[in-house]
């Protein structure tokens, strides 16, 4: 397969996944912002921080919902905004149009101009509906790929791109919110309760799944276990890494070569395996998150190198 084709499929999936994850973060932000003391904690700022978009907030003072909607939803100049991600996913898809099914293409093609010239106040008003709409587009696209796309290596590259982006969003969320999940004795700041914990689960649409796994009790240890090492929850880091490993292995079989990225994905896998049963806290949640971010970034670069993107 042409390297350009593989790269476009990889990035198309990443951009789409990114748009969806960011939409989920906005939901979390809305929940957090209505909690007592939220202004004092500048909750919306953490949303910007998770997406690496804090530098786009230049006017000083606390970050408002309006700021975040402008920066993360609408701003065409911000490459990480939902608007930009949809435009870029569509551009990636268009240049490999013949490798997509009609349904996949329609899902992409319908979404990309949605936010052209959308007004800020309008967007703030309709935010919940817009967030739902973004999540639905991503689901429709995934569904179309699931049932219609030829399982050639392009499919593997697409799935790997999506899994990397999803794992990284969970990791970045934990990176910014890790203090919420620290054991009681290590509390940074104070003023922490189970609303904070559940908001993290909400951001990842994991509340119900969490209950199924751990029963009705919230605890920092369980939540971080759920998001990092649980191999059944689709937005957990471990699940995403399983996906990467599976598709990377298919690529290795197809090409008859194990590349550096295969070593790196095994490294992440073992790191998470070692973190089971609360071990992740002994080693340090924050350190583990940082290490996983570093390794997945490296792996993404190695994939580009190994397959001549």
């Amino acid at each position: 397969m042409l390297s350009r084709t593989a790269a476009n499929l990889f990035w198309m999936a990443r951009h789409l996944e990114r748009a969806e994850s960011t939409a989920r973060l906005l939901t979390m932000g809305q929940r957090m912002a209505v909690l007592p003391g939220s202004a004092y904690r500048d909750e919306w700022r953490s949303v910007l921080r998770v997406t690496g978009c804090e530098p786009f907030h230049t006017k000083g003072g606390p970050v408002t919902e309006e700021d975040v909607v402008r920066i993360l939803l609408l701003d065409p100049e911000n490459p990480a905004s939902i608007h930009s991600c949809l435009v870029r996913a569509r551009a990636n898809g268009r240049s490999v149009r013949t490798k997509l099914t009609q349904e996949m293409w329609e899902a992409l093609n319908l979404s990309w101009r949605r936010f052209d010239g959308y007004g800020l106040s309008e967007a703030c008003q309709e935010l919940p509906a817009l967030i739902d709409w973004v999540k639905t587009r991503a689901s429709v696209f995934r569904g179309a790929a699931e049932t219609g796309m030829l399982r050639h290596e392009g499919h593997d590259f697409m799935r790997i791109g999506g899994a990397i982006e999803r794992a990284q969003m969970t990791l970045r969320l934990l990176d910014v919110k890790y203090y919420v999940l620290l054991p009681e004795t290590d509390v940074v700041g104070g003023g922490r309760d189970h609303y904070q914990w559940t908001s993290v689960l909400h951001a990842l649409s994991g509340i119900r799944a969490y209950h199924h796994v751990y029963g009705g009790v919230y605890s920092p240890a369980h939540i971080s276990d759920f998001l990092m090492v649980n191999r059944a929850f689709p937005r957990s880091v471990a699940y995403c890494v399983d996906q990467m490993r599976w598709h990377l292995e298919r690529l290795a079989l197809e090409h008859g070569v194990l590349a550096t990225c295969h070593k790196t994905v095994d490294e992440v896998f073992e790191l998470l395996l070692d973190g089971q049963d609360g071990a992740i806290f002994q080693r340090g949640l924050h350190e583990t998150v940082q290490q996983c971010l570093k390794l997945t970034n490296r792996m993404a670069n190695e994939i580009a190198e190994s397959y001549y993107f």
Partner: protein
Amino acid sequence: MTFSEMHEQDGAIRSCYAEVKRWIDETGIDGLKGRMEEAEAIFRRIGITFAVYGEGGDPERLIPFDLLPRVFSRLEWERLDQGIRQRAQALNAFLYDAYHRGEILRAGLIPQDLVYQNEAFRPEMIGFDPPGRVYSHIVGIDIVRTGPDKFEVLEDNCRTPSGVSYMLENREIMTRMFPGLFSKGLVTPVDNYPALLLRTLKEVAPPACKRDPVVVLLTPGSLNSAYYEHSFLADLMGIELVEPVDLFVDNDRVWMKTTAGPRAVDVIYRRIDDDYLDPLAFRPDSLLGVPGLFHAYRAGGVTLCSAPGAGLADDKAIYVYVPEMIRFYLGEEPILSNIPTWQCGTEAGLAYVLEHLGELVAKEVHGSGGYGMLIGPQASPEAVAAYADRIRANPGGFIAQPTLALSTVPTLGVSTVVQRHADFRPFCLVGKQMRLVAGGLTRVALTEGSLVVNSSQGGGVKDTWVLRD
């Protein structure tokens, strides 16, 4: 006197249209119109792929498809077939000569400056022998019919003629909708075109290539208006559709970047203009193209189809001399005639054209697609006067031809079968041997009396049948 392809002079149906006539009568106009809507729906379904490439979400208009086929009898086709091959052969012989000794110029049959000062002439090609001495591997010849036995060539297309996807799609739709029409085996199939094209491309691999040649189709990208055809042909031939960024040159070979590493390419069917092939060769201000591609070509590491500079042969000023080429290189009389053409670049030509502009069709030498053209009899006196000024300002840039009585073909009108003017573009493949599928693209002017069949000017397309009898 306009020749109606469906009718004898006395109004009787010509025998090659008997089957079409029977089908029209059997189905009835309402029936046909119903089927036409179905066809449009299918086309729109495929056509979505035409539309999505139009940037900005505004669907590109589909080229209208007319249900009623245009029919040639076996005898008519045999003559066309010979004439087309003869012309394609002479055009290639001319290109070889023009980039080598220039015998036809030395013989005084074509003015030297018309070749050596021509914008389409590529000095970089001088002295180079393309594999098989073929420059134009796909020759699209635009032909009009003006009588039962009279076929005339409107222009030649030697670079990268487009439209063959319509020939294939039109037949596909007709076969899908009216299997009964084809079940008797009366119509010669055209669906082997992609296989023949691939065979032709493989035949012209560089002599140094000892393996089954790797062929790719090079497209400018998904924004190009013919991208649909590029991807369609690449898919049907089972070859990679590449863009310039996918290729690089090293060690006098061309490589494509794949996930398994660089893979050598032997033949490039390029649908990119000369100017954008290689920024190091043709257009220094262009960032597009594959640096070093032309060098690799001259070194014999890859074959470009068509060869750079092949456009010289389809220049409208050179067109006038094609009958001479046929006599000079092949020692034969032209089977298909040229349309009498006045070159405004000559004193006598200019005087005649300016005097008779109101009766003539005038064209820009380098124009295409029906733009920049004047149809004298249909233009206002002001438009004619304005065009005359343009000619006076740059006589060498214009030619003029008599207004032709293009033949008409049956076309589905609002409430009846109507007769509309049409032309015809067959696609002749030139490799080690010449190949021609029995068919081509029939373009039809959908407005009554109109002589302009270009899709950009409101023309449509229809299936073309060559009967087996």
